[in-house]
């Protein structure tokens, strides 16, 4: 096997993540608009994006910040919403090249997002950390720049455009949850039940005192746990699906 230098891996990762960066730019622009509405300035919003790099997590965080939620709610909501990264990190932890120094694990971990995980996991053989670094160097600035521009230009755009962009993140979330719902009936059932419970919750006056962040945590834990117990995943099925995607 020929050895490829770290520099080459860095370049490969950077090239592969150009489409990711463009997607991030568009999505984080609407995140920036939401950040502005939640009362964050461009600097705070950009630092949030730089230190978190997570669409759903940051989006939920903005809701908690604007409703003045507690720090415990913030911590729990981030834990639940970003829990999916734990599975991704588990997979990459097995795949990362063990001949590289241990500290690289801390670096690669920072870049675990749905998309960067996706391309890092698709690398043949062991993962050279520099591939992920290359991807991070291109994708994360895209994510931060979009957030920053969203805060600055969200104000200058006509209100009707800002209103329309308000559905962008939700549209993205739908694009994430529907394809697996088609493949797996249990996911589809969980998605439908979650939506019914979510709207039902809003109609129960006694629940109005509970913050939006707490609602997300409670519903996610209860429904996911119920499905995990009632409809546990078949590991072999899972592996064949992972191989497909």
């Amino acid at each position, binding site marked *: 096997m020929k050895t490829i230098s770290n520099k080459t891996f860095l370049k490969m990762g950077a090239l592969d993540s150009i489409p990711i960066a463009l997607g991030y730019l568009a999505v984080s622009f609407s995140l920036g608009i939401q950040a502005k509405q939640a009362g*964050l300035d461009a600097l705070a919003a950009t630092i949030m994006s730089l230190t978190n790099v997570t669409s759903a997590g940051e989006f939920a965080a903005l809701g908690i910040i604007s409703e003045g939620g507690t720090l415990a709610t913030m911590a729990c909501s*981030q834990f639940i919403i970003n*829990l*999916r990264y734990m599975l991704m990190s*588990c997979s990459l932890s097995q795949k990362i090249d063990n001949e590289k120094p241990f500290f690289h694990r801390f670096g690669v*971990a920072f870049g675990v997002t749905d998309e960067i995980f996706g391309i890092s996991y698709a690398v043949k053989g062991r993962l050279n950390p520099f591939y992920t670094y290359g991807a991070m160097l291109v994708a994360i600035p895209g994510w931060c720049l979009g957030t920053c521009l969203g805060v600055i230009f969200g104000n200058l755009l006509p209100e009707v455009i800002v209103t*329309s962009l308000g559905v962008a993140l939700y*549209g993205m979330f739908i694009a994430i*949850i529907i394809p697996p719902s088609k493949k797996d009936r249990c996911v589809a059932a*969980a998605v439908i039940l979650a939506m019914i419970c979510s709207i039902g919750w809003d109609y129960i006056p006694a629940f109005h005192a509970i913050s939006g962040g707490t609602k997300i945590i409670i519903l996610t834990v209860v429904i996911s746990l119920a499905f995990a117990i009632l409809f546990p995943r078949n590991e072999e099925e899972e592996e064949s699906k992972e191989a497909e995607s």
Partner: protein
Amino acid sequence: MRHNVYIYIVVMAIVTYLIRVLPFTLIRKDIKNKTIRSFLYYVPYVTLSVMTFPSIINATGNVYTGAAGFIVALLLAFIGKSLITVAGCSCAVVLILELIF
């Protein structure tokens, strides 16, 4: 009680990084427990569903344009369109309807 925005950011950044880094460092073994694996598998879809619905309907301030955006996103996602296409078309439909009505 409203905290300084940077305190919120620090808390979320720490929690999020811990989730990412622990499997790389302390928990080096694969999670074998079937219930935990299944739980982790369902969590993202359930949480995104709760966050999206009914918020998307109320996002525009007009239930009808919000619902239109929701339905368009569902249909496009169902026929397998990419993330950006789904999000973009959903916005476009809302924009057109908001301009008309």
